[in-house]
């Protein structure tokens, strides 16, 4: 299982805080996971077309789309940070 989490504007666009999902065969990277999620959910697909870049963290570290995703990982999607 992979724990997917959504934050801020991404959470609102998805209408939920996250989900647990079984990693499908052939999904080994962030890019492949995003492609899978976009196929499952039109809201996710439209995130990538939005004005904001979509950031990804695997196990709480920001990574790029080529990063590996494995069973047991925590994968979070969110917009650019605006703290301070």
């Amino acid at each position, binding site marked *: 299982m992979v724990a997917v989490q959504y*934050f801020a*504007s991404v959470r609102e666009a998805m209408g939920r805080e996250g989900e647990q999902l079984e990693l499908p065969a052939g999904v080994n990277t962030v890019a492949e996971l995003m492609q899978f999620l976009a196929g499952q959910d039109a809201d996710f697909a439209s995130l990538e077309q939005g004005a904001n870049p979509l950031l990804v*963290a695997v196990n709480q570290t920001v990574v790029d789309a080529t990063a590996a995703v494995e069973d047991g990982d925590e994968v979070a999607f*969110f917009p*650019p*940070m605006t*703290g*301070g």
Partner: protein
Amino acid sequence: MSISIQTEDFDLAREYEGLRQDAGDPGAIVTFTGLVREIYDASAEPGPENRILSLTLEHYPGMTEKCLQQILDNARQRWDLLACRIIHRVGKLQPHEQIVFVGAASSHRQHAFEAASYLMDYLKSTAPFWKKQETPVDSHWVQARESDAEAIARWQASHSGD
């Protein structure tokens, strides 16, 4: 050297005193406090869309703590710091409330000034916090500014080890 993420307010005098105690024999303490503005852009036309009724801060529990600790550790490697502290509030805040505190204590002022500035720049665009603004017109997520990313790029350019 500590971090706090909290809904409650903080007391500047108490935080300053904490840094002073922790540092032992500091020659300089620099503190910065960020507050919620009531007028979002003072240079823009006055209007209801520019007036902030409240600011709601969301974060990514777990990653936020890791990220802030990493920022503190990096600052300690780069400057001679005797003590440092980050406090970031989350939840719903009103105009004029305090949002964020950073403090840096060192033997010399240059280290304390630069470290405090570095902590704020990194915190703003690399720690997982997001602000939502409520105005009389709507409620919207604050957009990241290009100048925030540029601030990070400047620190990286001035230090190849980052």
